[in-house]
């Protein structure tokens, strides 16, 4: 029998989908800014593996020579990004949803088993509630990354007025590196997230829009069988 099972609360669905376009705009406008001083590369033992970013990439996205535009967009949408994040975190704390989200002690061990299961190496996945161990870690990490982006962002946006944040981030120069690295992290998260959502299928995807999943439950027998009593028989 089909049963509606509530999954994602309305506040979570709204903040999730509001965040998606805002973060896209933040990443795009961030690239317009980064282009003006695009000095980051992955270099190991003197060999450069990758330069952020190649010309074909910049040209395909029409990024070059748009620094002032990028700053104007970035410094408007930062408000919405931060506000939406604060709303989500407040909701998660007040509603108690954080119990489902924050990793537990066993999560770090279990996440490995989840990974093996997802890679079809292991048959059984550990039992879970709303989120499995890997999801708990990933979804908590992405929230911490969001907080990190706001802090590193403020540290490079107003390094004199928010000097304590700049200090916390290891100085202006390093804060810019962190801010950039976090953005790369979002993109990696996004890729894995989308693949996982596709693999999880329609029922799961729909739950982030409509809030519920449809599950099949065994119909309950009409005649109740007497349950075995836990009480000790009276002597």
């Amino acid at each position, binding site marked *: 029998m*089909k049963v509606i099972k509530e999954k994602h609360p309305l506040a979570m669905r709204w903040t999730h989908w509001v965040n998606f376009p805002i973060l896209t705009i933040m990443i795009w406008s961030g690239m317009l800014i*980064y282009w003006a*001083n695009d000095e980051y590369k992955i270099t190991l033992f003197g060999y450069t593996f990758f330069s952020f970013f190649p010309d074909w990439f910049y040209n395909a996205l029409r990024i070059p020579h748009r620094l002032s535009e990028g700053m104007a967009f970035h410094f408007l949408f930062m408000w919405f990004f931060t506000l939406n994040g604060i709303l989500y975190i407040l909701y998660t704390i007040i509603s108690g949803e954080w119990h489902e989200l924050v990793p537990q002690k066993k999560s770090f061990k279990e996440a490995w088993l989840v990974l093996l299961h997802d890679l079809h190496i292991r048959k059984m996945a550990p039992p879970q509630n709303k989120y499995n161990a890997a999801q708990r870690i990933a979804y908590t990490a992405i929230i911490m990354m969001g907080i990190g982006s706001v802090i590193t962002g403020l540290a490079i946006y107003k390094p004199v007025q928010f000097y304590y944040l700049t200090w916390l981030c290891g100085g202006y120069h390093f804060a810019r590196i962190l801010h950039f690295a976090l953005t790369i992290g979002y993109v990696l998260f996004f890729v894995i997230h989308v693949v996982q959502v596709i693999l999880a299928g329609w029922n799961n995807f729909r739950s982030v829009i409509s809030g519920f999943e449809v599950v099949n439950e065994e119909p309950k027998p009409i005649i109740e069988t007497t349950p075995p009593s836990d009480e000790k028989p009276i002597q």
Partner: protein
Amino acid sequence: MKNPFSKKHKGPKKPLTVEQKISRRNFISFGTFIVAGSVAYGGWKWLYNSPEEARTVTAGARAPLRRALNKTELAFRRVFSNNNLVKTYPKEMAAKNVRHNSDIGSEGKINVNAWKLQVKKHTGEVLQISLDDIKALPKTDIVYDFKCVEGWDQISHWGGVKFSDFISHFKLDAETQLQYVGLATPDKEYYVGIDMPSAMHPQTLLAYEVNEKPLPPNHGAPLRLIIPVKYGIKNLKRIGSMSFSDNRPPDYWAEQGYDYYSGL
């Protein structure tokens, strides 16, 4: 009381089946999703294609984004304090090759002996100040991390006169009651406007030395602004004139779509 518009129900309302509940909730949530998504997309299109601001002291930005930049400036200035100082470093850490980005308004060489700083007071009086007059004032050095709007930064060492010392020595205190300082190169090709609190910040210098040597032409000989609470674009090289105003003075990069305030 009976509502004449209410439909008459035949008997008690039937509870919805699970299937009906599912399709009803899907309809509402996906409908909302599509409508909200379309509105958001429309809003983005509107913003992206919004007309460029009317050319005033600022130009080159989309009108709504310029409003946002100005509003953001006001929001931040409310909490900013001039007591917050830029971090300073020991002079050994200063770069030997100081990065040079642009020569607008300071191309070529300048005859330092003939140079005079013109200070236009609001009374109309114009002071002509020579470099020696400025060098006679107490010298202040600063080694700090210079920050460019492009994203690079470099620790550099500058020496000169504190802007606030300059003001009090030349009895310009009445001018500091106005809200802005305007600076321009002798050829008027490059010009900046600085809000008075930032100009009077204790680390703002009228610099005539870099790495303890007189400024070379490409770093703004004979006198340049070093204002650590602003991006490099506000650190005007080769100052020719100084003026004071309650309105925002013209600003080269604010006319190219950049934030007028550009404070750090």
